[in-house]
């Protein structure tokens, strides 16, 4: 499902990253763990097609990301990848429900029943018509998970989803993410420096 080979990336010739090869089968989740500054976010952006590597190959769902144009990457991303950011971002002028509708619109979908079922599943259905800046931190995180899965991605990429949480909440969030991935038939890749997550994943690599 995901195969990377000799992936290298450098920012303006100053920072140079060489990533180890990854080989992930279908139906497997993956934890990528590493200290700050080893290029975790860079790797995630490379996997999401937000950045292009300087050399090497990233094969995701049998597509070579390095050979796609920026437009093709946008389209590949909306059909295949959901992203959960370290800090949740939303369109502030829209309500929770409208944010999800916007995500669907971008992917040429329109399915309010799916939005409802996701929000119910995440226990935030009653917040549907709230503006996102009226939500608590925990609610925001759940809405950002909803945004990541609303278009039924095959892969969910999560960037430091637990770094700012206490042990209790950390475990809750990661269980929630895993459950959502299973419920909606997606694979999960978590990128983090949080070693507490190790016990939740069968497969992990260290950068």
């Amino acid at each position, binding site marked *: 499902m995901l195969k990377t080979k000799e992936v290298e990336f450098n920012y303006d010739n100053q920072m140079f990253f060489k990533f180890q090869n990854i080989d992930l089968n279908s139906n497997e989740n993956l934890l990528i763990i590493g200290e700050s500054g080893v290029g975790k*976010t*860079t790797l995630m*952006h490379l996997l*999401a097609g*937000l*950045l292009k590597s300087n050399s090497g190959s990233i094969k995701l769902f049998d597509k070579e990301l390095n050979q796609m144009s*920026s*437009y093709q990457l*946008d*389209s590949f*991303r*909306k*059909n295949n990848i959901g*992203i959960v*950011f*370290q*800090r949740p*971002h*939303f*369109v*502030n*002028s*829209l309500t929770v429900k*409208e944010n999800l*509708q*916007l*995500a*669907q*619109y*971008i*992917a040429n979908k329109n399915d309010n029943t799916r939005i409802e079922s996701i929000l119910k599943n995440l226990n935030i259905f009653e917040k549907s018509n709230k503006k996102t800046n009226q939500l608590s931190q925990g609610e925001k995180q759940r809405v950002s998970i909803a*945004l990541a899965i609303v*278009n039924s991605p095959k892969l969910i990429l999560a960037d430091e989803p637990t770094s700012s949480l206490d042990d209790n909440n950390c475990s809750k969030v990661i269980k929630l993410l895993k459950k959502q991935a299973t419920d909606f038939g997606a694979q999960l890749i978590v990128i983090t420096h949080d070693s507490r997550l190790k016990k939740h994943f069968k497969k992990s690599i260290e950068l």
Partner: protein
Amino acid sequence: MNIFKLSIKNIFNKPLSSSISLALLVLGVGIISLLLQLNTLIKDQMDNNLRGIDMVVGAKGSPLQLILSSVYHIDSPTGNISLAEAETISNNRMVGSSIKILYGDNYKGFRIVGAEKKFIELYKGVIKEGKDWDNPYEVLVGSKVYEKLKINLGDELISSHGLRETGQSHDEGTFKVVGLLKPSNSVIDQLIITSPQSVWDIHETHDHDEHENEHEHEHDNREITAMLIKFKSPMNIIQFPRQINENTNLQAAVPSYEISRLFKLFGFGIETLSYLAYLIIIVSGFSLFINLFNSMRERKYEMALIRTLGASRFQLSTMIIFESLVLTISGFILGLLFSRFGVMFVSSLMEESINYNLNSLKILNEEYWLLGLSVLIGVVSSLIPAIQVYKMNISKILADA
């Protein structure tokens, strides 16, 4: 949900900065459109009343005053001229037709004009109810007069001396309403019209008994206020007025010339004001640009989010341009509404002071240009923000978060 709806939601999410740009644009567009409307309406009204009058003859004084008083009925007359002298001019071979008019009285601020019947034909006046006057002291009433003063057929009007409502009404004469005129959208709408004989009779110092016998005798002393003249050939307009002004103690004025002089006078003011309004529109463009630019910085994370959700660069840039266009186009529409209310306001002011009114809701050609200008401002001020969004490096923004 779509990109257009999102643009509108974004505008409403920042009501303060959106409404400042909007208000500036409404002001700019509104002022220009108001000036255009007023200019056109006044010119139309002026030209409408000018039709069929090549020259006006009256007493010496300001030519503009003569035109304003005897063509537009909004200023005091320059004085009176003798009927005999007027007759000499109207018998000149260059004169096609002439209409003598007399002033003297008013009824509750509306002027009573003594005029030959040709006067009503000149303005294409049509009697709605009643009949033409046959005897002295019978009057036809213009549409605005009877609407405003609720005058009916058969009413008796007690006039007072002078042309303005003075408050002290020393009974000059009693007129009988024999006819009401249909609205004609010209000056006769605000006039009360009677035969010249009525006006002469009122101002006669002689006893009523002697009146009938002395009629012929009096002839030479009778006066009129002005005479409206149409030439046989338009060529005469150059020569004839000068002849009168140089060789007689009368004054001849050419309305079209005086009116274009008047327009040149206040045209300067209009021009200055419209430059100011264009300046306001440009400032509104700047304010729009600054708003978009700032909100783009504030919203860079949500833009990055929208991109990671799979929206293309082009869709995001479109959103920015939409936001700007929605504001400028609604600014244009509100500006037009503003100017229409302005026209109604000015019209009601004018109606009170000089019994003129202006009403038109049609869109002028220049206003389509104004729409073009608004759209242009919308596109230009959103261009740089849109390009910046297009070139945005989402990975860098997200990594900095």
